[in-house]
């Protein structure tokens, strides 16, 4: 059976079709990991590309990501824990003093559907909480979201707190949100990357971890 239709269903956000095709594929004995890596993830990657080119809009991206999640939910129990294809653990949150969550939640949804494990610390997160969560969950990347300019000092404080901590050498840091600029994030704060939107965030995280996009 050719599963290109599954990729297409993810791209088009046809959840019912995608779920049926996934069930079919499982019945036909396809390797669950291969279904995710060869058919689902490339679909979502294409959605991210189309979003960045402004060919599709936020609701369409959300539907595709939800479609993908529904398929992954079916496949997850079939994959043995130790070989689960988690690409890495990402700790994310909106910095202290800021309660905006739309951007952060979009990033979370895209990361999870791309195969990452996401630990969401929510909004209004103090810097020490980022450090503790990164340590506790053995995170590869910490993502900071900040929409308000009052968040600036907290972005800087959080980046520096992580870098100065025991996990600083190992954890990469990415920041995004309306108030931030690459100059501030990478220059003044010393973070590893700036993301201009949710899809860019996923790409940059893959780059930081040297995962093929």
């Amino acid at each position: 059976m050719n599963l290109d239709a599954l990729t297409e269903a993810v791209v088009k956000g046809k959840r019912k079709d995608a779920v049926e095709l996934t069930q079919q594929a499982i019945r036909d004995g396809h390797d669950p990991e291969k279904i995710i890596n060869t058919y689902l993830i490339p679909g979502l990657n294409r959605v991210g590309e189309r979003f960045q080119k402004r060919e599709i809009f936020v609701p369409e991206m959300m539907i595709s990501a939800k479609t993908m999640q529904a398929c992954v939910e079916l496949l997850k129990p079939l994959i043995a824990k130790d070989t689960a294809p988690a690409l890495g653990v990402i700790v994310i949150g909106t910095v202290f003093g800021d309660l905006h969550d739309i951007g952060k939640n979009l990033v979370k949804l895209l990361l999870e559907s791309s195969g990452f494990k996401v630990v969401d610390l929510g909004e209004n997160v103090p810097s020490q909480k980022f450090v503790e969560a990164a340590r506790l969950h053995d995170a590869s990347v910490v993502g900071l979201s900040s929409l308000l300019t009052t968040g600036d000092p907290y972005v800087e404080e959080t980046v520096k707190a992580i870098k100065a901590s025991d996990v600083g050498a190992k954890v990469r840091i990415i920041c995004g949100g309306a108030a931030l600029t690459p100059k501030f994030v990478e220059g003044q704060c010393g973070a590893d990357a700036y993301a201009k939107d949710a899809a860019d965030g996923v790409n940059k995280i893959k780059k930081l971890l040297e995962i093929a996009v």
Partner: protein
Amino acid sequence: METILQRNTCTVTIGPQHPLVIIGERINPTGRKKLACALEKGELDLVRDEAVKQVAAGAHVLDVNVGVSGIDEPGLLRDAVKVVCAAVAVPLCIDSALPSALAAGLSVYEGKALVNSVNGEERKLKEVLPIVKHYGAAVVGLTMDDDGIPRDAGRRLAIAEKIVNAAQKEGIPIEDVIIDPLAMAVSTDSMAAVETLKAISRVREKLGVNQTLGASNISFGLPERHAVNALFTALAVANGVTCPILDPTVWDIRRAALLTDLLLGKDEWCMNFISVYREKFPLD
């Protein structure tokens, strides 16, 4: 209930019996790369241009926000207020998340300004309301608190009540509190606009205060954003918004504001709409 803003000889009255008061949103670097770059360098020419342009396009009040990363926001906001005051006559809405910047902006403003904003967070109320009181200003209250923005209209109303009470305790009269029930992106939650409209109408029923709305949020992530914003503004005004924050330089948006007044009986003989139309499309 009427909120009166004033600067020198220019007075603006906000209230349900009056035509819409348009608060011009363009002096704000969030999502405006060019303005953000200019502000980073401390250049205020663009701020002046935006002020003149928006007043020419029908703004009655101008929002002034200069928040960008890594600058001295109090100093820059003070300078921006001076520049805008020298360029146009209208009252201002002084906008910052930093209390010290609000105070700096108000210190060089002559008259009664609007302050943007407080919300239901204890810390915010404690820090900002005394500044508002000290300068005799009016204040925008956002219906969010330490737990974020409630999705549910009832909880937004409860926060609005909390803000009004806190302001009154500080000696700020209820008519000088303008509630913003917060528009959220409809692209990530199909019921977001409905919940905001419900909140607007419940705030009107229960508190009767004036209401503003940064309507542009509603269309985040969608095509035809101006059309979405324009229609939503009309719905919001019909439910109780009296002074929306919007971009009057976009004709779709300005037209929506004019037509909303016209259809709600606030444009006698439709003359305001017709005269703006004539100016925009002259017979030559």
